[in-house]
Every structure is written in C-alpha cells, then in structure tokens.
C-alpha cells in the first residue's frame, strides 16, 4: 500500500487528494495542516468579513471530506522540516510521518511590511480564518480602518470593512490602485467607482510608522507626515510562499519551490503545487508564481495524477488572471496587462457612461492579455485565445466589438484543430 502525504489542506492539497483517491482506491493518504479548521476557501474571507456570507459557507468541502475519501487528517500541526533522504516529514511536536510520495501544498502567507509598530494589536493580514476572526473582533472597537496596499486583497478588505459601517482609508504607494494588474487608465475607472461609494483612496503615499500607546493601534503616520487616526490596519502587500520546511534540503527553491512541467520538484518523489510552487508562466515561459485559486486547483490535480501514474500529465503553465466585482462593477484581467514595450500592440474600446472599458494586448499576432471592466461576460473566450496562443489577426476587429462571442472565433478554432483539441470543440457540427 502506497503512502501519500500532502502538506496543506487548501485548494492545491484538496484537488490533489481527490485525484489520488480516484486513481488509487487503497492507498494511504495523510493530509497535514497547521490550521485546525475543516477545508475552507480563503478567497471567501472578505465576503465573510463583510457579512455577505455566514461562516458556514466558507466551507469548500463537506465536513466529512476526510472520511468520505478515507484520508487521515493531521490538523493543527505544523510541518517544520522534511527529510527527503529518510522520506519523512517532521512535525512541530516532534512526531514524524513517513511517505512514499509527498506533495508540498503549503501555499503562502501575507507579507507584513517591515514598518515600525507593526507588532501592535490591531494590525492584521487577511489570509486565514483566524485573521478574519481577529479582524471581526477588532471591528467592534474600530471607527476608522486603514488598508495598506491598493491591490486586490487591500480593496476586498476595504469593501468588507466599509460594508460593516466602518470608515475606510486605502493607502497606496503607487500612483494608482491595482498597479500590479493594470495601468492607470482602467485603474482610474475602478478608483473613481470605489471612491464614489465612500472608500477613501490616498495614492503615492507610503506608511512610515504605526502609532499607538499600550501596544494598540491608534493611528498610522504617512511619509508626508500626516497622521490618520485609526484602530485597525489591514496589510495587503502581497504574499510570500511557505518554503521554510524545505530549507537546507535537496528540494530546489528560488522564490518558491521550483517545479517542472509535471509539478515535480528537484527530488523525484516530492511534488509541489499551488501558491508555494514556482512553475513556468504560460506566456513568458519564465519561472513564476501566479498565486491564484484556479492555478492551485489545476496544479494540485496534475500533481495528483503524476504522483500516482508517474509523470504522464503535463501542465501547460500558470496564467495570471483575476476577477473581482467592486460595488456592482465587474473587473477581469488576464495575462499581460501593461504595454511593456513597442512590440506590444494595444486595442482599447470604452464607454465612459456605463462605464465599460476593454483593453487588449497583442504580440506577434497573438492575444497575450486583456483588461475588461463593466462588461465581462465573454472573458473566458478571450482567455481561451490567450491560452491557445493562436494568431488572431483574422478576427482582430471583432475583439473590440460589443458583439464579440464564441462564434467570432470559430474560424480560428477550425483552422487550428491541433490547438483546440478538446472534445467540446467538436460539439458544434
């Protein structure tokens, strides 16, 4: 009986476990997590914080998930080290778990800025259910909350806290919000929309110190020497992969744990998937972490297959893509979303009244990315063009058309059957 050990019970770990169980009915599967909580979706934490959903709905799988799949859970225990030579993982409490094949799906944690005063009570990241609960408690004592960072997490947290009736200021170092995923023109549309709903946004400003006596947050000082009085600070400054457990082992790391196209690490019987794994980017081909839920699920799945069947399934690469909706304004971005140089052609269409804004990035005739605001329904069709890397020159005009839909790419599908190989493309005859 083979022993599979999976570290991490989130997106990547769960999808791997399900595939492993499907392919091997008798294997022993052990899942370890330092969080003592049933399988939940951390993406929903901002909805939970906003009171849009009850705690019950955070559950991404049934309470009986482990039983149903005959998995031995080891919850609330941190893995401190793995020993590839001995094929064991060491837990915080000194105990050991042996494995034949190991999956590292330890994800990432919120980066807390190195800013004086960050240890004061009232400063949180938003990554775990425990973070969300602590923020919840602190909200009772909060009149004003400050978000450090104008990325997706910062803005989602801002929405949630605002919805709870708290005054919110988002402090952004860059000239505009969402600077990681779009340039200034679309970002300003989103910024205007959010500001109109009552969230204050201050750009081009960094926080320099968190103030407060008695170890409790009372305010934050900005680089222009102004002080915002606040009781709660949520830091949304990106994430950092949890790779400490492979330190000083043969498992190769860069920023994350480096994996090949089979999601295998530099050690044959150790795989990695999700936010912790650094794999080839679908567009650039460079080692990248696109720390996103869909990437984690698909990587987990492929890792699971390969752990059971040997390296049979290839991963076509990670893709940067995001979807959010702020106060009724949907936004979807994918792939390359900034014009880095002149070799990238840009197409834009907009209607300021609605507002609707669409921007497309094309290189050598191939769609490499897009930003959609206001009208996102056909995002997946554009997304498929990015993934399939086909020459879109023939249909370029219709990309920006309001009437764009799947039918418009039919000529490309028919001309590139080897790329559109999935059986579903044969269902239109």
């Amino acid at each position, binding site marked *: 009986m083979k022993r599979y050990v999976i570290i991490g019970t989130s*997106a990547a770990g769960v*999808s791997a476990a399900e595939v492993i169980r499907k392919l091997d009915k008798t294997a022993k599967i052990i899942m370890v997590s330092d969080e003592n909580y049933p399988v939940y*979706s951390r*993406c*929903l934490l901002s*909805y939970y914080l906003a009171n*849009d*959903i009850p705690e019950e*709905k955070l559950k*991404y*799988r049934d309470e009986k998930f482990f039983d149903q799949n005959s998995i031995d859970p080891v919850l609330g225990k941190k893995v401190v080290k793995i020993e590839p030579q001995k094929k064991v993982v060491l837990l915080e409490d000194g105990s050991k778990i042996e494995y034949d094949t190991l999956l590292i799906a330890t994800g990432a944690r919120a980066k807390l800025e190195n800013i004086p005063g960050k240890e004061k009570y009232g400063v949180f990241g938003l990554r775990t259910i425990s973070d969300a609960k602590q923020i919840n408690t602190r909200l009772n004592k909060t009149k004003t909350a400050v978000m450090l960072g104008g990325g997706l997490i910062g803005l989602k947290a801002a929405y949630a806290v605002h919805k709870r009736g708290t005054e919110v200021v988002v402090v952004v170092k860059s000239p505009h919000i969402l600077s990681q995923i779009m340039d200034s023109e679309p970002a300003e549309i989103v910024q205007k929309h959010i500001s109109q709903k009552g969230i204050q946004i201050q750009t081009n400003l960094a926080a320099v110190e968190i103030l407060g006596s008695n170890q409790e947050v009372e305010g934050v000082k900005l680089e222009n020497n102004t002080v915002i009085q606040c009781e709660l600070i949520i830091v949304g400054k990106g994430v950092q992969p949890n790779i400490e457990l492979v330190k000083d082992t043969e498992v190769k790391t860069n920023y994350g744990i480096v994996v090949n196209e089979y999601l295998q690490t530099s050690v044959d019987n150790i795989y990695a998937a999700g936010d912790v794994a650094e794999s080839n980017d679908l567009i650039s081909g460079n080692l990248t972490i696109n720390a996103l*839920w*869909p990437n984690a*699920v*698909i990587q987990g*799945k492929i890792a699971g297959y390969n752990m059971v069947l040997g390296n049979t399934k290839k991963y076509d690469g990670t893709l940067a*893509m*995001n*979807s*959010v*909706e702020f106060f009724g304004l*949907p936004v*979807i971005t*994918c792939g390359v979303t900034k014009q880095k140089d002149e070799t990238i052609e840009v197409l834009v269409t907009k209607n300021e009244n609605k507002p609707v804004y669409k921007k497309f990035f094309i290189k050598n005739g191939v769609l490499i990315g897009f930003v959609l605001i206001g009208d*996102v*329904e*056909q*995002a*997946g*069709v554009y*997304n*498929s063009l990015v993934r399939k890397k086909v020459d879109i020159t023939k249909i370029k005009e219709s990309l920006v058309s309001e009437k764009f*839909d*799947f*039918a*418009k790419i*039919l*000529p490309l599908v028919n001309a590139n059957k080897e790329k559109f190989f*999935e*059986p*579903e493309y044969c*269902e*239109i*005859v």
Partner: protein
Amino acid sequence: MKKTIIVETEKCLGCKTCELVCAVQHSNTKNLELAVFEQPTPVPRRKVEYINSVIISDGCHHCEEALCVSACMSAAMYKDVDGTTQHNEEKCVGCNMCIMVCPFGVIKRKGNVVVKCDLCKGRENGPACVESCPTKALKVSMQLQQIS
C-alpha cells in the same frame, strides 16, 4: 458517459426559440406571460451567435475538464455524478471566476449569482431547448467519456 447538447449549424436558423424556452423554463413561474415581469429578469442559458453566414446556438458544453469547476472558489460549480457540470446558486458568491475561464462564454450573470445550462435536470422530456427547436438543430448527446 459525457452528456451534452450538440448543435448542427446547418440546421440552425437563428430563430432564438431555444433562448426563449430556456429563459421561461428557468423562471420562477415557468410561464411566458408572467416570467417577463420577474425580478431579476429570467436569463436564457443558451445564446444564438453568428459569424458571417454561420449561425450557432451555444450553451454549456459540460466540459470533461471543466475549467469553471476548477476556478470556482466556493464549490458552487461542480461535477455531478452523471458527469454534467452543475451550479448551486445557494453557494455562489458571484465572483465571476467561472466566467473568466469559460471557453465558450456561456455562463451568464443573473442578479448576484451566475446561471448556466443545467440540461434541464429533472425535466421529464429532457432539455426544453432540444424539445422545442423547430428544425431539430439541437440534440442531446451521450458519449463514452475518455478516462483521462
């Protein structure tokens, strides 16, 4: 088994009967005259699309490797035991992650959640669109699924 709806483009006239019966079938009242007054307005889960002279009626293909299911962060989108892709509106938070990845663009927004073709699950005569298509351009197909 893979269950889905196949469209024969040569037979499709673009009359949009499928869109209409779909919207009514998935309305609260299931009655055309009353459904038009519902809020949010009933949404068809099929869409008649065209390019040049080719017309198709497209809807969820119930993909084997359903990208929407992998992308859904609330497990609202799921694979049913019969292999079809189904959606649980109760769990949906309307994040549009599924819309972001659907290669056919056939997941629609309705109020705060999304909706898609459910192959008229539980309907005695099968999908309403297939039954009502005047030219029989739509048909339910069952294929043996490849073990991947």
